[in-house]
């Protein structure tokens, strides 16, 4: 004689453990993203594009046998015609008898698929934009029409046919239940059935930002350096885009003179010759005065260079950069110096990072990048925030 009873606890017993598991996945994603941000495949991707991030550490490792020809598995196939050497599909790959999931290597994978937008959340949530001054006009008011519920009255084009029909059918069913309606009879729409979509004006505020990406494309900027610069700019763009609704981008490439170019040209264009940084800064100032009035735009400027500048340009450059800095929320200077070029013919004292030392302050920061692994730390140094330096 067995006992039967209603199961008592209504508590969701695995809730705590599910939360811990989720935290682990998210932590792994956060740790994983930093390793992949410099990967070619995600650079230059659109925000909606999905990317796969291999997430480590959620696996429960055990001693297991490798999946190779020493490790024979056995399957059954009653009624099927099989022969030696025949290929067995991976599709319905079976777990061998007695195995719990996860006992075998390679069964588990935790590639988490996320969009770049989600990635930005993981990457940037702990970072802060330097909130230096609230721009009076930085919020532009715009009105949008937005759906908002239903009304029983409205204009014909806004009639919600599906909803109205559903209401009619409901009424019909209940009439039938009450014995008030016979299936053969006509059952017309009633005014009460009709529902109209309601539309409301919604006021929204938009915040604007413009980013000036300036890059040295002179002969000394090798492909490798450009790649580092590009990765760095990519992060900057996504970060700022994540924080503002409207982001304008201005790409300024320069050697001895500045060129305003599009994104594609910016990263692909190569030039020979010397370097005059002042040209780009001057161009930026000009564009600001023409198109991005500082009172209504949050301005960010980032400059990537390998630090070589013509000595006789230094003074002018310093002067102009100082002016530009005053207009910017943040001016970041990123010096790229790939490892193998440590010993250079230039005098280290003459690099731009040295020249710029005098400008250092709340809205002027200098970072250095030698290799892809440096990009994230450099980025964090720029935006500090909760992650610290």
């Amino acid at each position, binding site marked *: *004689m067995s006992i039967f009873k209603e199961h008592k606890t209504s508590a969701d017993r695995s809730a705590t453990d599910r939360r811990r598991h989720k935290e682990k996945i998210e932590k792994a994603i956060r740790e994983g993203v930093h390793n992949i941000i410099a990967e070619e495949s995600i650079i230059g991707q659109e925000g909606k594009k999905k990317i796969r991030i291999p997430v480590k550490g959620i696996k429960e490792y055990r001693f297991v046998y490798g999946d190779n020809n020493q490790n024979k598995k056995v399957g059954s196939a009653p009624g099927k015609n099989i022969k030696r050497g025949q290929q067995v599909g991976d599709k319905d790959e079976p777990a061998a008898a007695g195995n719990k999931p996860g006992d075998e290597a390679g069964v588990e994978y935790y590639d988490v698929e996320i969009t770049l937008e989600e990635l930005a959340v993981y990457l940037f949530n702990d970072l802060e934009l330097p909130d230096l001054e609230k721009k009076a006009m930085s919020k532009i008011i715009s009105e949008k029409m937005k759906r908002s519920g239903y009304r029983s009255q409205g204009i014909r084009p806004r009639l919600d046919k599906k909803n109205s029909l559903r209401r009619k059918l409901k009424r019909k069913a209940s009439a039938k239940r009450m014995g008030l309606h016979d299936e053969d009879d006509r059952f017309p729409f009633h005014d009460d059935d009709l529902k109209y979509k309601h539309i409301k004006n919604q006021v929204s505020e938009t915040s604007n930002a413009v980013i000036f990406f300036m890059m040295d494309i002179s002969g000394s900027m090798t492909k490798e350096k450009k790649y580092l610069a590009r990765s760095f700019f990519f992060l900057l763009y996504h970060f700022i885009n994540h924080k503002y609704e409207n982001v304008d981008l201005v790409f300024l490439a320069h050697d001895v003179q500045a060129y305003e170019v599009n994104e594609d040209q910016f990263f692909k264009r190569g030039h020979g010759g010397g370097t005059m940084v002042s040209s780009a800064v001057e161009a930026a100032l000009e564009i600001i005065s023409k198109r991005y009035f500082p009172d209504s735009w949050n301005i960010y400027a980032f400059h990537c260079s390998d630090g070589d500048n013509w000595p006789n340009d230094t003074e002018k450059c310093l002067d102009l950069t100082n002016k530009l800095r005053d207009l910017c929320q943040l001016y970041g200077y990123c010096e790229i110096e790939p490892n193998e070029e440590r010993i250079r013919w230039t005098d280290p004292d003459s690099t731009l990072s040295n020249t710029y030392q005098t400008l250092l302050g709340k809205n002027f920061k200098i970072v250095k990048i030698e290799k892809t692994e440096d990009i994230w730390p450099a980025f964090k140094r720029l935006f500090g925030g909760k992650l610290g330096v």
Partner: protein
Amino acid sequence: MSEWSFEELAVWDDKITSKAKEYDLDWFPIMYEVCDYYEMIGHMSYHGMPSHYQHWSYGKTFERTHQLYNMGMEGLPYELIINSDPSIAYLMRENPLYLQILIMCHCVGHSDFFKNNRMFADTRPESACIRFRSARKRIQSYIEDPSIGVSKVEDILDAAHSIKFHTDWYPLKKLTHKELKEVYLEKVKNDETGDYEDFDLDEIPLEPDYDLLGFIAEHSRHLSEWQRDVINIVKDETQYFIPQMKTKIMNEGWASYWHYRLMNELDLPQKHHIPFLKSHNQVIRPHIGGINPYHLGFTMFKKIEERYGLERCFFARETSHDESFLREYLTEEDCQELNLFSFSKKRDARTIDDISDEDGWKKIKADLIKTVGLNTIPKIYVDLIEPGGVLVIKHEHEGRDLELSYADEVCQHVMTLWGDVVKLITIVEGEPWEI
């Protein structure tokens, strides 16, 4: 609303139990708890134990089961019964009456197996639930202890779980280090052959120790009391579950054999009988390209009954485990009927190595045995402690190489527990290998 009532369940239970007693089945009293599917997979994630300590891995298991359920496996007649006295079993509220009857028959088979199979002799079913609850409370107290906290507890649990199967596999009382030393002291004293001339009585361990968890808990120099306790909790749990791992095929086969037999003798009304047959066929269908333990176990018990009579089935359920069961009873004819084949991963694809013809079936039987019970778990033992506290563990290579990327991670975990350097010695592609 369910289409059945508790009274109906009780009526069918009476019929089932009296039928089962006619066959001399001998099981623990069963307590059925009726729950919904969400609670069901909740319990499944904790191996059915009513109380179990918390660890994120069970949350992961839940998510996976839940996902499978949503992917359309919901038709499966989930059954869940634990080896305790009384046996606790769960019935899903959503299931129709015939399925409840089927699961109740199935549970009688499991409970009988728990109570009578020799492997379970030391599992102490009467106190199982209490022990798990105590373990839960202790771990909870460590989590809540401000000087310990959840991450430290998780570190130890993560590490202990990685070697949880590496403990005593046999229901023999293991000698403590001290007792073992006595044994060897006697041997050295009465050494007439000279075999023990160079025997070092101070060496730890004195003989290869396969109980990694127990060894580390006993000999690590760095563990605090609560950490030892956590390791022992994991060890106790594994020892409780090892008999079930050893007898998965037999246990499911036995329960399926009996649900089929009892159901057919219950005089089910036609409206229950046909869906029952459908569910039964679904449960014991062969998994093409894999082994369904329900199918293999059910087929084997049918064959044994045909060949040697029901008495022999009872004998096997008492004395065998999956490995010995297959070794003794799986014949060439069975291999052919099941159309068993062996396969493995070659360079770029999985191909069939052998099929169950006259030449192949013995090899396949041997390969099958290698994949049942505890044979999927590599044998690892503590070899010695090198000067400086280096723990040397060895893999007893029997033809299959370890997956090194995994072994590497496990060694990290072992180091967490041991507190000093850990070395693993194995063989890879015929060459000695050290991690």
